[in-house]
């Protein structure tokens, strides 16, 4: 008995959805084992996760709040990966975006109040974008690997932010805590619902997803990005400016990650600190992969990941099972989706034992 793999010529949407659901199911089944080992009941644990993520207006708000930066960093990864530009630096770009927001929005510059929010967003977008444009130029000029550069830049940026919030940007009123001066009230995002933490950053994320989807589907730029990503040689031969297109992608990708940082500062914390992001930049890669790099899918993948983390915290408080379970669920889901994408590309064929004759 043996199995053979053959490439598929066509993959239907139904198959894609079925494989995604199956992947999530398998991940949950596997995670049931450590839940049992920890002395818990998988069904009630999962039930508590769902309840903790969606069970009350407060829970839902927390989940959406958590999803907001993930949507943006997920889109940052998705748009870059579609063009085969490997941006692993969303974490650093997020912090640089947040830093730009603080520089522009905390009263250091005299900007009229009504323009503060647009100014904060544009500054964050450009700062994040620049953080990706520079590695892309280095790649084009010198063949420097953008994976290494963007990954290592994350640490550089976070150390730089620490330097600033311990020094020139340190808030003198923060009782010695290493945090920056706060944003002016006019530079902050409004709450979507009174007394709940979710804020207008969520709308920014959803709008960005929609715009990206339109760009991919409807615009010349989206067409050119696809051509460059799928076959750079043919794109170049056809006269599509490969380098310029890549730079646009880099600006968008870094900019979206920068916006994620703006959202966290302007919508949640109002100041910059070195614990602003618990790895939203890296989780964005997971989100984008779970979504199959689809802009709309990214929204749902971000919601899933956010729900698992928020729900697992609440489940952990109720049962005493470690909330590391959330990492397990997300990591296994990603693995299962990756395995699933393999089956989307290949068909498995079963074959009977071969007859070896003629002896």
């Amino acid at each position, binding site marked *: 008995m043996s199995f053979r793999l*053959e490439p598929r010529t*066509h993959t239907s949407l139904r198959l894609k959805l079925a494989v995604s659901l199956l992947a999530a199911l398998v991940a949950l089944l596997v995670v049931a084992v450590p839940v049992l080992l920890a002395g818990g009941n998988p069904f009630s644990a999962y039930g508590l996760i769902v309840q903790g993520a969606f069970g009350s207006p407060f829970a839902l708000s927390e989940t959406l709040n958590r999803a907001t930066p993930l949507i943006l960093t997920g889109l940052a990864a998705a748009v870059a990966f579609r063009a085969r530009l490997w941006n692993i630096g969303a974490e650093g770009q997020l912090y640089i975006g947040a830093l730009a927001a603080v520089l522009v929005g905390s009263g250091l510059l005299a900007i009229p109040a009504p323009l503060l929010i647009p100014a904060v967003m544009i500054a964050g977008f450009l700062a994040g974008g620049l953080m990706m444009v520079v590695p892309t130029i280095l790649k084009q000029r010198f063949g420097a690997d953008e994976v290494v550069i963007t990954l290592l830049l994350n640490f550089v940026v976070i150390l730089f932010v620490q330097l600033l919030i311990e020094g020139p940007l340190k808030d003198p009123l923060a009782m010695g805590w290493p945090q920056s001066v706060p944003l002016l009230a006019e530079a902050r995002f409004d709450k979507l619902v009174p007394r709940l933490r979710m804020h207008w950053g969520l709308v920014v994320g959803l709008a960005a997803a929609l715009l990206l989807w339109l760009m991919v589907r409807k615009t*010349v730029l989206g*067409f050119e990005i696809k051509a460059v990503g799928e076959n750079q040689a043919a794109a170049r031969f056809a006269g599509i400016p490969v380098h310029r297109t890549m730079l646009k992608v880099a600006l968008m990708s870094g900019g979206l990650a920068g916006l994620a940082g703006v959202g966290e500062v302007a919508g949640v914390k109002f100041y910059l600190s070195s614990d602003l992001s618990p790895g939203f930049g890296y989780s964005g890669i997971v989100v984008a992969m779970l979504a199959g790099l689809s802009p709309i899918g990214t929204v749902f993948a971000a919601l899933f990941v956010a729900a698992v983390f928020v729900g697992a915290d609440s489940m952990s408080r109720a049962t005493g099972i470690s909330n590391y379970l959330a990492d397990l669920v997300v990591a296994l889901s990603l693995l299962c989706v990756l395995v699933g994408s393999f089956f989307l590309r290949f068909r498995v064929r079963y074959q009977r034992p071969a007859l070896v004759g003629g002896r």
Partner: protein
Amino acid sequence: MGGRTTAGLAGRAGQSGEHDKGATLANRQAEIVLSLQGITKRFGPLVANDGLDLTLHRGEILALLGENGAGKTTLMNILFGHYVQDEGSVRVADQILPPGSPGAALAAGVGMVHQHFALAENLSGLDNIRLGTEPLMRLGASRAARRKIERIIAESGLEVDLDRRVAALTVGEKQRVEILKALYRDVRVLILDEPTAVLTPQEAEGLFTVLRRLAANGLGVIFISHKLGEVLAVSHRIAVLRAGRKAGELLTAQADRRAIADLMVGKAVAEVRRSAPTPGKALVEFRKVSLARGVARAPLTDASFTLRRGEIVGIAGVSGNGQAAIAALLSGLAVPSSGQVLLDGTPITSANPRALVAAGVARMPEDRQHDGVVGTMSIADNIALEEVRGKPFARFGLLDRKAMRARANAAIAAYDIRCPGSDTEARLLSGGNAQKLILARVLEREPRLILANQPTRGLDIGAQSEIHRRLIAARDRGAAVLVISEDLDELFALADRLLVVHAGQVSDAGPSAALDRGSVGLLMAGQSITAPLGVPA
């Protein structure tokens, strides 16, 4: 199984007199070394191989002919165990090969020389031959291996310097190393996939001599090719595949070009006729153009030539002698390191494919899958690829999908691109249909200049003559056409005038009507560049 005779297998294409010749061949080749029976392979709705039978005898050279998509590659992949057939069996000598096991095929003595060599460039010929068969570090093995290889060389005439690094070998020598690699494994069946694509006519003739000698020593050879001339020259028997089936099988001694061509396409092929050219003003002028290595695979040195409206100029040469540089310059991928390329009197000063396209240059790239189409994009997208920014495909940066689809549907109809529809991904097209897509893309604008780089490489005769017809029609309309090809038959059929490149130098060989293959072959090999043969002074 051995009871079958060649005459009995000669198939429906046989003619009178077949029996006598068949009988003599049958005596010599009684032993069947390879037999494929009822091979059927489906990919979804596509039937790539449909009940194929094929037999190869000891000491026989069997030519396997067929267009791209006819099922040759699939059949060879099944034989090699890369694919698993849905039905049928592969038998080498007396042993049925387990499906899907390349190891078993190798062990049974099937060797293959691919079109693209699989050699480690930094190792010597000797090490390359041993690579994969035995560990290179084993003490003493090298000497035994050398003795064995030297014996094979003496028997076959595959002369090659075993101690040179493969990177320093010529293409012909590399191919010999590939063949030696197979022979070193004591193969019974040797498969050569388009072996002459990279050779000069003289080198190809040398290869044929080797193959004949190997066959005389009892090796069974399968020779895959598109070039009828060489198939007729080297093979004993010809099997023609068409649309996954065996269209016919005939003894070479009784075959003629027309009959085979008709078998390949399944209908009578119209000979492409070419009237005398009426060249007009110069359109493209190369003035002492040099292009350093790096931009293209091989440099171009002080090339000067002119291309006039209303003529087809062919560039002959062994691949890698400067053709890529000429193509890059006329495709807008490079500008000269020195000298000038004039298009209609204006020098091309920036590497800008879009500007060239806008200036009326149609460009057909050498490697259509790599440079010509984006495989994962649709036919409609690929047809719009060069002009996606302008009308009618886009307005204000937004795509007009309807216009793109309309253009694609028109092109599919006009150029007979065989596909399920304009949404089909380009990677699913066969080579010929991909080339027709590119042709449709570039000819739509009634270009002034057409650069056709290997326009029909790997295409069946039907698609070939279709593309030739279109190029000649464009010439008659007044376009200048530059054809770069490794296929001399194609150049003689198409070109009004021939240029020959060798080692980055371009020489004008003159009107093709006054030339013969031999003299062009000598020029291709770098002899008497200054005084071309066959041209009256």
